[in-house]
């Protein structure tokens, strides 16, 4: 019998539908019955540090909505959501559910995950790490171990970890971001890596530009899990980054119409054109 679980994927990961769909498929394959929840109506409030009333209102609403799903366990994909939950929501709202981070769940279930990883992914990769968040969940050890379950995949042993806990924050401090990217590129060259592998969507969003810029291939670890499981989801976000100024042409017309061409041009295209600083 499947175990009900709420899969709280967060907000900004909706740029990467392939990652969300892969996580859901993996949870099902591991014996869970996931109830996905995410987007602005489930925002943890962390983007609203400059408005504590909004921050408090949003985080309380989300804790109540997650509680209303009625599952004992909520597994969070996003490190910001997970941190916000542990740092503030548990203390302020005392929700009934237990919070777990997605990598932690995968690691706990790695014996059941391993037989699902059947297709070789012959690649030598550098895992992109941050110092932060690792104190809460030891992702810098867990993700490489999980990746090593994939046949043919070689994870290089590299201690370098970037400051902060994710690149979306670091990108607000260009000197720190540029320095981190240069150090990363240097390791990739020295260790002859085929690809850079991110843990968080916030890093994937900031670093996938390196592939569009011809520096290195960039994947999220769940995209490699998907490949090894034989899941055929496409990475549309990467395709849009690579399309650059022609991104609109790569989007099915009916979907672009829903978004609105003017909104796409004003609010989405600049992100797709943004280069990863190096």
């Amino acid at each position, binding site marked *: 019998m499947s175990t009900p679980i709420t899969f709280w994927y967060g*907000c900004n990961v909706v740029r990467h*539908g392939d990652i969300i769909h892969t996580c859901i498929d993996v949870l099902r394959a591991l014996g869970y019955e996931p109830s996905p929840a995410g987007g*602005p109506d489930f925002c943890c409030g962390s983007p609203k540090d*400059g408005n*504590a009333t909004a921050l*408090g209102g949003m985080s309380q609403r989300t804790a109540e909505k997650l509680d209303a799903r009625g599952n004992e366990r909520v597994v969070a994909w996003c490190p910001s959501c997970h941190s916000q939950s542990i740092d503030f929501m548990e203390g302020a709202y005392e929700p009934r559910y237990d919070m777990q981070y997605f990598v932690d769940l995968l690691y706990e279930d790695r014996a059941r995950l391993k037989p699902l990883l059947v297709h070789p992914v012959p690649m030598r990769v550098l895992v992109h790490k*941050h110092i932060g968040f690792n104190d809460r969940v030891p992702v810098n050890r867990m993700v490489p171990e999980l990746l090593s379950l994939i046949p043919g995949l070689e994870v290089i042993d590299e201690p370098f970890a970037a400051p902060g806990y994710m690149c979306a924050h670091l990108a607000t401090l260009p000197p720190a971001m540029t320095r981190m990217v240069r150090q990363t590129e240097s390791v990739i060259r020295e260790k002859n890596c085929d690809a850079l592998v991110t843990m968080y969507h916030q890093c994937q969003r900031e670093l996938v530009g390196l592939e569009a810029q011809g520096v290195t291939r960039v994947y999220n670890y769940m995209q490699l899990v998907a490949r090894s499981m034989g899941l055929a989801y496409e990475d549309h976000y990467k395709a849009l980054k690579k399309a650059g100024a022609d991104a609109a042409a790569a989007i099915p017309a009916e979907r672009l119409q829903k978004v609105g061409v003017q909104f796409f041009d004003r609010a989405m295209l600049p*992100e797709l054109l943004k280069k990863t600083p190096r």
Partner: protein
Amino acid sequence: MSAPKVGEKFRSFFESERARILSSCTSCGKCYEVCPMPAYIEKKDGSTSGQVAAGVLGLLRDGTAQGTALEWVKVCMRTGCCVPACPENVNPKMMLRLAKIIALGGYGAAPLIPKKEDRDYFQRIRAFAELELSEDEIREWMT
């Protein structure tokens, strides 16, 4: 009985954390000493580590701060090296987070550090959802 105001529970938790930190931090400065982010502060004012920590406490106490203390709050990326370094188990990462909320004007005061306003933030997320998820998924997962 009137309904609780929006943000009231958060405010209550915020105040309890603020009081806990103010009463337990000794301004030893170990948190600042181990942090990797001061390397990215352009203009340091010569404060010692202890003075920087005391400056952050000032922000928590009365909403005022300047110099390196304020710059440190600005560049905090929640790296978390400060947490195990703290000899008083204060959780300086939380201290900096609360300080940043205050410095951004989160409780209504004039912002002391630049506040990034992105009017399209949530609409952009909804728009990407339109590109990546089905109508059923949006309806069932996002409301």
